[in-house]
């Protein structure tokens, strides 16, 4: 950052948030506001014959009860497959399906009346296990789809049979992961306001305003231009406030349309957990072949992801898992098959990490299991196989457009955590006292942004006002991570002005072009790229007008220290420069676009340049495991990530710490409990996210290798920090106990520990392909 903007913790919304003045969706009020609530049934899979709304409609304070029959537009929608029923029609496909929305003068009246809605439904056999859903004759979740397979991705590289034949050692293991709740602290909320000009205006807790607009326009049957989604502060998303949050907004808009009044639809925690999509549980069956000297020859892996009742972005999530299924290692022979599968469970979709936490949990344990067999250290096996500058990924992409910094981040974590010395203290199941000590690490590479999932571009508008103040808007959404602040800092830096000049406009889908969703750690990369391009366009435009005044050529005009300069000290203040622009009848206004460089993908072979750039990260955890109780205590956590360039270091560190903490939850405590399709862990009493006392002090190392393909030189950080702590902890627990834990979350059974260390023996799958982990 420049002299005029010294680096320190800064965000544009901090004061509003710390004083309680920030208005989140549920904090908004409008004249004549009505309240809506959803109605569920207790069915998991059923033919719906009818919804009886008469009693509810007659209840005190009720204005309207809405069912699928009232929808003027399309009741079904989805980002990839249009299979989501925003209000259930003839079928209930999961326990979170909504059959009606009750709209009343008060929330209490709506809640009371919702209990009076009854349905006539015939239960259908439910399919709750994705492996079962794949078998012939399994009940179909979507009959029209014809199969329960949502998608099948593959990688075919080399010849795996030859690779295994050339291997001296084969490790084989089945891993499982759980449904994970995003647990954003603010449940979904939306306010829809019908405007006199015919536009439906929406304020919602969602992280994808453009997706929200598409869902809403579809449900109302109106053009996109007739829906305006305005951003308000949002209490966390982590990938979880796309589909469900958009649908909540769309339902509020439907109620507003049908009543002609503003409608608020605020979810309580139980509705949120019941209805919103989760991180996919995976079953992953890995085989890895290596030569005696520890070089990986072949990996064969079959991944089955439970997509739940609706497609959402399952094809994209599982695609990333496929591309990254071998971790950051060179593997000449790979066969990967990944299936996204419908079941009658809660649906699954985007969550911070987006398909990488599951595969990292496995592959980072598998390489260590191989190392144990080969008597190599966890570091040595990684160093022999990890990608380096110019290496080729398993999808055939040559990593040569940026600095491949995997060795750098690994070395930093090894040094910061004093890994090698601490490794020497690991108990491996043997200790004098009750506490078994262990340290473990994990590393990854991660394709940045959307890759071949979709078109990847973004825009920014910079509009300098007559007094020298500046309005900025981009197609990136503030999810709480500090995206707006990063954009402001990048603009201030590029224009050489004080950041206090810049106000980030409350974003509106009616102003900025659709920039896609603020997921995939793409905010700073894509939005920042657009900001840099807009700033450069603005400077060019201003230089052309100001050069004569500064007595130089346009190319010699410089923007710094909150002023515009010619060579030899000629100087205009920003205010003077803006007045000159007005005199010349030129607007100091610019629109900038960043188009992500082209990526390629061949779905049949799973080969291509999947992402235009990659990030590298490594994390470590130090634990003790109590031999009597099985309790795992995390004593220390370390992380090093290459971020390209640090734009707002304190906020960047916040992404490190938050991601590591969420990763600890994934590793040790988090799993949604589902009983025959019905979620039981509906609130924080039954779903344990990390508390301040569960966490040790964390150590973060920012590594900067500016990325030539990123206009701002920055890459992303939101997800990389969240994909490594669980395998690092699993490896630490293995080092402590001498046993492997192949189910996420890691739960240590003290009774098993009494038997002593087991190593990685006996991990061949039985006839059903099930391998005991220890």
């Amino acid at each position, binding site marked *: 950052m420049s002299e005029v903007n010294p680096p*320190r*913790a800064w*965000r544009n*919304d*901090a*004061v*509003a*948030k*710390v*004083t*309680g*003045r*920030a*208005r*989140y969706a*549920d*904090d908004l*009020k409008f004249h004549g506001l009505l309240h809506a609530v959803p109605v569920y049934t207790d069915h998991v899979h059923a033919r719906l014959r009818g919804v009886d709304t008469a009693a509810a409609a007659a209840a005190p304070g009720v204005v309207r009860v809405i069912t699928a029959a009232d929808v003027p537009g399309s009741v079904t929608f989805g980002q990839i497959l249009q299979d989501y029923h925003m209000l259930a029609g003839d079928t209930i496909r999961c326990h979170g399906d909504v059959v009606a929305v009750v709209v009343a003068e008060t929330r209490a009246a709506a809640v009371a009346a919702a209990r009076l809605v009854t349905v006539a439904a015939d239960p259908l056999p439910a399919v709750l296990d994705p492996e079962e859903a794949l078998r012939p004759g399994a009940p179909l979740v979507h009959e029209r789809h014809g199969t329960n397979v949502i998608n099948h991705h593959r990688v075919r590289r080399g010849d795996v049979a030859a690779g295994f034949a050339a291997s001296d050692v084969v490790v084989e293991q089945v891993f499982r992961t759980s449904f994970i709740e*995003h*647990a*954003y*602290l*603010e*449940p979904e909320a939306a306010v829809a306001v019908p405007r006199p000009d015919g536009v439906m205006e929406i304020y919602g807790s969602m992280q994808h305003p453009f997706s929200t607009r598409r869902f809403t326009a579809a449900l109302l049957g109106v053009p996109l231009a007739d829906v305006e989604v305005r951003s308000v*502060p*949002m*209490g*966390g998303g*982590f990938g979880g406030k796309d589909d469900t949050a958009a649908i909540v907004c769309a339902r509020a808009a439907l109620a507003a349309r049908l009543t002609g009044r503003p409608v608020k639809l605020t979810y*309580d*925690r139980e509705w949120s957990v019941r209805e919103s999509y989760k991180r996919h549980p995976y079953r992953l069956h890995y085989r890895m072949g290596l030569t005696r000297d520890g070089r990986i020859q072949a990996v064969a892996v079959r991944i089955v992801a439970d997509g739940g009742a609706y497609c959402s972005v399952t094809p994209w999530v599982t695609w990333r898992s496929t591309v990254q299924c071998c971790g950051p290692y060179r593997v000449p022979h790979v066969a990967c098959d990944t299936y996204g599968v419908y079941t009658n469970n809660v649906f699954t979709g985007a969550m911070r990490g987006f398909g990488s936490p599951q595969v990292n949990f496995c592959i980072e344990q598998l390489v260590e299991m191989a190392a144990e067999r080969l008597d190599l250290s966890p570091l040595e096996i990684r160093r022999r196989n990890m990608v380096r500058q110019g290496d080729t990924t398993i999808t055939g992409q040559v990593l040569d457009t940026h600095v491949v910094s995997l060795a750098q981040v690994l070395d930093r974590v090894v040094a910061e955590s004093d890994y090698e010395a601490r490794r020497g203290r690991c108990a491996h199941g043997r200790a004098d006292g009750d506490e078994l000590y262990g340290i473990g690490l994990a590393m990854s590479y991660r394709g940045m942004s959307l890759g071949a999932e979709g078109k990847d571009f973004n825009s920014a508008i910079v509009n300098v006002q007559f007094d020298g103040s500046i309005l900025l808007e981009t197609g990136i959404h503030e*999810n*709480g*991570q*500090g995206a707006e602040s990063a954009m402001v800092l990048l603009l201030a830096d590029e224009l050489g002005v004080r950041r206090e000049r810049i106000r980030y406009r409350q974003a509106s889908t009616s102003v900025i072009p659709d920039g896609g969703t603020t997921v995939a750690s793409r905010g700073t990369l894509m939005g920042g790229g657009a900001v840099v391009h807009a700033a450069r366009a603005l400077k060019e435009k201003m230089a052309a007008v100001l050069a004569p005044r500064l007595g130089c050529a346009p190319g010699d005009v410089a923007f710094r220290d909150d002023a515009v300069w010619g060579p030899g000290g000629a100087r205009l203040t920003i205010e003077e420069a803006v007045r000159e622009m007005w005199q010349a009848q030129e607007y100091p206004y610019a629109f900038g676009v960043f188009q992500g460089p082209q990526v390629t993908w061949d779905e049949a072979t799973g080969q291509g340049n999947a992402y235009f750039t990659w990030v590298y990260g490594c994390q470590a955890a130090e634990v003790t495991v109590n031999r009597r109780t099985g309790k795992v205590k995390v004593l220390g956590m370390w992380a090093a990530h290459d971020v390209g360039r640090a734009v707002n270091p*304190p*906020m960047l*560190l*916040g992404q*490190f*710490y*938050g*991601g*590591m*903490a*969420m990763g600890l939850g994934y590793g040790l405590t988090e799993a949604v409990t589902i009983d025959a399709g019905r979620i039981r862990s509906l*609130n*924080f*009493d039954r779903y344990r*996210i*990390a*508390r*301040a*006392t569960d*966490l040790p*002090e*964390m150590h973060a190392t920012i590594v900067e290798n500016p990325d030539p393909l990123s206009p701002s030189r920055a890459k992303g950080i939101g997800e990389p920090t969240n994909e490594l702590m669980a395998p690092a902890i699993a490896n630490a627990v293995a080092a402590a106990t001498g046993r492997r834990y192949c189910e996420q979350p890691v739960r240590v059974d003290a009774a098993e520990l009494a038997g002593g260390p087991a190593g990685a023996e006996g991990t061949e799958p039985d006839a059903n392909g099930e391998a005991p982990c220890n």
Partner: protein
Amino acid sequence: MQLTINGRAVTVPDSDGARNLLEYLREDLDLTGAKNGCGIGQCGACTVLLDDRPVRACRKIVADAAGRRLLTIEGLAAPDGALHPLQQAFVDHGAIQCGFCTPGMVLTAHAFLLKNPSPTRSEIRRAISANLCRCTGYQQIVDAIESAASHYRR
């Protein structure tokens, strides 16, 4: 019924005494700084102070506050708008992300520092352990509270 909210006397009709305190603050008094994150006393987002002690507004009724001093996040800054040193520390240490936990977290920390102005980091962690934050990993929140403690020692 007489309440003192953020230093101001507020008269509440007795008929409202049984209403949920969080809902009353948010809907009737427009004090929306206290948030509803769980509704069952588990997350701490609704924390307000009664006579300097943190309580979960989602689990209280209006009558519980009768005759006591109630402080919400809106009442912590100086009347001229200057941030309380604890609030300033949250800003300076990057302790705020989505901000949904922030009001409850700040008030919990404020009550704690009033009682213990020289805490260790692990005492701070214990003090905020019932306030959930999904964004920050708590590290910078602990930093902020630790650094603000000196203002409570005078």
